[in-house]
């Protein structure tokens, strides 16, 4: 078996999700190549070559890959896929964007967000907001797979020494143009890689009140997240959202503050090792998944927690 993993990176370094995807590839078994495609991404290729368990790094450095436009990335993946039995990417907004496009161009189905590898053609994936797990077997000759990264440990980031080979980009499709990206400024640890996350919901009442969570987060070295309700209300930006349609995370400790616990929110955090819920409504569904529940007014409990740490 030969597996191509599409690396997610910022041109200089690898995004952590790539390392979890490599582990999923290792569980399938076989030679693993890592594709680093971007514009000015030789730094990321260097980082990729250090990942343990990689056979080769394929580096495609081309202006047409600026902004990782789906059309151009998919065409590149399609041009390489014929050499592989499996193509894997993380089920992040990066991977979810171009992978189905590449799959359709190859006339294969995509197996979305696998949470477990059973064999080279059989996988488990969550459906219905994680309320069911489907075991599926693929008959396609090339298997295009996205990986739910919280279900796989990260491969070792350094210690490997894979050769870097240059690979040519497909022609620019000319169909789309990258305009820009706006990222919320934060000094804090990234949500998907944090070992502790404290999230706020509608109960926070406004964006200003999220500073209470910031203070606790700083003491714990935690990231701050939010429920969809809090993002919809404009309290915090969209990249804070934890849930079925936001980020799926599984930190060691998840503290849900003023979050009722809709099915869609639980889908994004219920694999956390320890879950704490603070809510004044003792009937809130969040308490059904909490290891430690505290029925309290968050405006009293959070400052108290802040002081106690």
């Amino acid at each position, binding site marked *: 078996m030969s597996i191509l993993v599409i690396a997610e990176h910022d041109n200089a370094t690898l995004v952590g999700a790539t390392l979890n995807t490599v582990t999923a590839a290792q569980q399938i078994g076989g030679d693993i190549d890592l594709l680093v495609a971007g514009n000015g991404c030789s730094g990321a290729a260097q980082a990729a070559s250090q990942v343990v368990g990689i056979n080769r790094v394929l580096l495609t450095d081309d202006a047409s890959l600026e*902004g990782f436009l*789906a059309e151009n990335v998919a065409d590149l993946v399609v041009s390489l896929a014929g050499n592989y039995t499996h193509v894997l990417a993380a089920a992040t*907004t990066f991977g979810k964007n171009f992978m189905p496009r*590449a*799959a359709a161009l190859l006339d294969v189905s995509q197996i979305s967000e696998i949470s477990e590898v059973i064999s080279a053609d059989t996988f488990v994936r969550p459906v219905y907001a994680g309320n*069911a797990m489907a075991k599926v077997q693929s008959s396609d000759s090339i298997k295009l797979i996205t990986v739910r990264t919280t279900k796989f440990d990260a491969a070792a980031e350094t210690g490997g020494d894979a050769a870097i080979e240059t690979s040519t980009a497909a022609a620019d499709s000319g169909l789309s*143009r990258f305009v820009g990206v706006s990222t919320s400024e934060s000094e804090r640890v990234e949500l998907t890689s944090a070992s502790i996350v404290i999230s706020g919901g509608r109960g926070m009442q406004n964006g200003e009140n999220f500073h209470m969570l910031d203070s606790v987060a700083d003491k714990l070295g935690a990231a701050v997240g939010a429920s969809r309700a809090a993002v919809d209300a404009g309290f915090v930006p969209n990249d804070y959202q934890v849930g079925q*349609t936001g980020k799926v995370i599984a930190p060691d*400790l998840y503290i849900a503050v003023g979050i009722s616990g809709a099915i869609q929110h639980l889908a994004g955090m219920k694999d956390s090792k320890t879950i704490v819920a603070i809510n004044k409504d003792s009937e809130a569904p969040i308490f059904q998944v909490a290891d430690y529940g505290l029925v309290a007014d968050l405006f009293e409990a959070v400052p108290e927690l802040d002081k106690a740490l």
Partner: protein
Amino acid sequence: MKVLVGVKRVLDPQVKARVKADKSGIDLTNAKMTMNPFCENAVEEAIRLREAGTIEEVIVLSIGAAKSEETLRNALALGADRAILVLTEDVLEPLALAKIFKAIVAKETPDLVLVGKQAIDDECNQTGQMVSALLGWPQATFASKLEIVDGTAQVTREVDSGLETINVNIPAVISADLRLNEPRYASLPNVMKAKRKPLEKIDIADLGLDTANRMTTIEVMEPPARASGVMVENVAELVEKLRNEAKVI
């Protein structure tokens, strides 16, 4: 301009899915069904484009069993002009759906295809991307803002790092995220009017496409249950337990 909007009938998002005892799938007997929430955003956006005078016609397409007509009637009540139902008893994979979309696009020649970014049942998040691939059109996925500017679509996309803006040629496929808009409710008069709006039914066999699934579902299982937790009396007890019992802080 014309817009084709995909809509899917799914289990109501407020209802917790129950796995069948024989592990063959989800028990949908007598379950409350509704339009996939992301599809509601796609329909709403199409209607707003028509209200703004940007487009002239909103066509809604659903692919599924006869009961999907309810979902299409709902879209018509929200303001879509006409509907197409491709009838199949099979639960098709996104690749097959994309082939059907392509056939309908060839017939209807829309300028835009709008879909929800994912269905909340199978959670594939593939159909929009696959439709655009098969059509050779650009894609703008996870859209939270759409503007038609000088014959192109300027789309803000919700990505893991924040908000990304791309500009795509038209025709294009756009997949809606939840913050693209706030979907309206259908008024009673519009629900009545929707019953008389045109709805064309096409048998999937008449399209002559290979829509065979590439995956077999071996079984559908319950997720592992979490051990039940405890309630604490106050913050001091919580901190004590996190330090000494869970050992996570």
